[in-house]
Structures are given as C-alpha cells and as structure tokens.
C-alpha cells in the first residue's frame, strides 16, 4: 500500500471519491488503472478493519487489567 489511510472513515471517504471519479467516466486509462489499484488497497484495508471488529466480542475488566499492570513481573 502506498500510504496507509489515517482511519477507516478517511479510507471510505477516499474510496467514495475514487468511485465517483470512475463513475464520471472522465478518467483516462492510466488514471483509471491507478484509481482501481488505490481503491483495491483501500477495500483491503477497510475489510481488515471490519474483520478486526467482526471476529467475536472480547470483554475485559479494567480492574483485571489494572491488577495485571500492578503485579511485579515474574522472574524467570
């Protein structure tokens, strides 16, 4: 990927721009191919972001996390 998107929303916004541009039919061949490549990368990124919050809810307790942080590291 040329440059990782700042966030999911930034990626989606750019993706929408790309599709609008492609739909306009005004992009030349080189630009079209370039936009398609960028779009595919964005789709991959967004898909990974969605996968990250789609594989099962994880519930943690703040107290447990705090206790873990406070316990002294185990000495091998």
């Amino acid at each position, binding site marked *: 990927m040329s440059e990782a998107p700042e966030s999911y929303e930034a990626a989606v916004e750019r993706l929408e721009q790309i599709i609008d541009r492609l739909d306009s039919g005004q992009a030349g061949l080189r630009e079209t191919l370039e936009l398609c490549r960028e779009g595919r990368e964005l789709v991959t990124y967004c898909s990974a972001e969605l996968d990250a919050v789609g594989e099962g809810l*994880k519930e943690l307790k703040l107290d447990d996390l705090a206790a873990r942080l406070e316990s002294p590291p185990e000495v091998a």
Partner: protein
Amino acid sequence: MEELPGPFPVGRYARKLQEELRRRARVRLVGEVTGVSRSKVQAYFELRDAEGAVPCAIWLDDLEKAGLPEGGLRDGAEVVIGGGPDYYPGGGQASPSFAFRATHVRLAGEGDLLARLQALRNQLRAEGLFELQKQLARPRLPKTIGVVTAESGAARRDLLAGLERRGWAGTVIWAFAPVQDRRAAPAIGAAIQELAAMPAVEAIVVTRGGGSLADLWAFCDETLCRTVAMLRVPVISAVGHERDSTLIDDVAAVACSTPTHAAEAAVPLDCLAARDALIRSAAALRRAGEGAVGTRSRHLVALARGPARALRRERIALNQKTREIRAASERGLAERRAFQRRIALVVLSRAARRAAGADADSKREALRRARVAFRAHEPERTLERGYALAEDGDGEPVTSAAAAIAAKHVRLRFADGGVGAEIDRDGGER
C-alpha cells in the same frame, strides 16, 4: 506572640465563641447526607457536596417533627436543612465540638436539585466546558471502547445488545463502578480517567438506567463533569431516561437517551451495512477496471483491424483496376494488331503491285496468246478435224506402221470416242 491580648481562660473563650456563632444568620443548606450516627438525644451527620462539608447535628425531637419517611436520614440522601452554626464548648469530661445545628430537615426535592443543577450548568457553560468534548473527533469504527457502568444492571445488557445489532464485535473494557451514592461520582471519575489513559480505548461510554434526579445526582457532580470535559477521549453519556438531563450529558461528546443509543454513538458505523457497502465498492472498482481495459482493448482491436480492412479494400480495388487495365490493354493491343495487320496487307499488296509493275499486263497478254496457240495444237483440235489417234494398250501413241504391227492391237481415238482395231499387216499394201 506577647503582643497579642490575653491570655484568657479557655472556657470563657469557648462560651464567647458559642455566642458569636449562634448570632450568625440562620440559613438553609442543601447537600448529601453522609456518616449518619445517633446518640440518645441527637442525630449526627455530615452534609457535603463536591466543594466541602459541614458537620451537622439535629435533636431527635426536631428530626421526628420533620416527618421524614422511614430511614429518610441516611447516607447518600440529598436533604435540605435549616438552622445555624453552633459550638459545644464541652465540659469537664465532654469534648468540645462544632456543628451546624439543624432545626428543620426535609429531603431535597426536584426543585432544589434542579436549582443546584442549573447553577452548575450555567457555571460550566460559561467556562466553555460544554464544547470541549464535542470538538473531539470520534472514530467511526473504534476497535476498543471503555464502558463505565454498574456491574449488575440492564444498562450493561442493553449496551451489548446495541453493539451486537451494529455487527460490532471488538473489545469492550468494562469499568464497573457504583452509579448511585456518595461514592459514585469519585469512582466514576477515576474509572473514566483510567480508561482514557489506555491508548487502545477510542471512546468511553458512561451509562446507567433511569431514576429520580436524586438517584442520578452522581452524574451531576461538578468534579466528575469537569474531569469528563477535559478528557481527550470522547465520552458518550447515557444516564437515565430521555426526560432526565444530568450535567454529564452537557459536557459529554454525545448524550444518548438509552444504552442502546449509546452503543450506536460509540460505534457510529453499522458494520453489517459497511461490509455490504464495501462489497459493492469492490465490485464497482472491478467493473471500472475491467470496463476501462475492455472498452479500450476492443477499441484498439477495432483500430488494429481498420488498417487491415482498409488494405484489403484497397487491394481488392487495385486488383479490379489491374484486371480492367489488363483487359483494356489486351483489347487495345488486339485492335492495334488487327489494325496493323490491315495496314500491312494494304502496304504489301500495294508494294507487290508496285513490284509487278507495267510489264505484268503485257505478260498476261502474251500468256493468253500462247494459251490460244497451244490450244490450236492440242490433239483434240486435230481429232475434231477428222483425224484419229492410234494408241497402244498402254495409251501411248502409235506413230508408225511398224509400231502398229508390233502392237497387233491398237485403239483408235476419234473426237467422239475410241474404238479397238486389229492390225492387218498386209492391209497397207492394197
């Protein structure tokens, strides 16, 4: 120190202090009751809010006259008391103490709390604390959210249901805290700060179910609300029901009426719909890519075929022309040849005639004369005059008597035909 007046006996000073305090104006105070205890004749408690506290005492007679419901004077109760400051100078054995002597007490009504809330609201708004959280960017798809709520309660369940409906299954860090009493506000404040300190946490939800304004009073705590306002992580509040409006709702980035709505505010993106939209986007990209290449390659193929077609067309036209030219030239050649032949014949005949010259005519005349002369000498002419010609068996002329005798048989040819004749060797002598 020697310049100060005195020294006075302390007992006298204590009584003077009591007199002075009792002269102070009688007022009403509102706050939360904590640390209730009773003696045989009095009840003691502290009345406090976020800024401070005053130790209070009330004679049990006065408390009874107040007509509070059973257990009304309890820790966490919001009350209004009437009275003034007092000082107990102590005695030989008893310890001195200061207390606000309450003569009247009642539970704080919505009106009292709303008045306090309004005052706080005005103050915080004037300080611009309502705007800070609202200026924070809220991620549409957080991976981790923190939630402050009671460990047991419908709010927790409703929030999870809301998240599930969004199709969101990221990480939830639960920070359980009391949500109703004097300990609630500090515990909630501490939990929020701890969650905000975790880099992974992208949004914090603070939620509890409905209740009276007194029940929700912890969420109007000034310290808690100032803490929330200054956080750099967006806080989504869902406290009480739709009609309830707590101070935390004002300072939070988003105020929601229910935990379910809070789930939607914490995860603004509907993940299920987003996935569908993403699939559509991917398809649109694929179509655009294939379309762009396909259309252009078809165009290129057509362009590439163009010259070949044009060449073929030209070649056909050229061949046709060539055939026409060949046919025309052959035709022309034949005509020319025939013409030339005619010309040659004329020329040759003329030349021949020229070559023959004038003596040809005289030769022809001589020939005619010769032919007449020759005819005059032909034997047939002689026969016509009455002569006969003797011929032997071979048709050879017999021109002498000896030859005739030798031949024995001759044939006599007359002008009108021939007859055979026997030679009589003596016949000539008669």
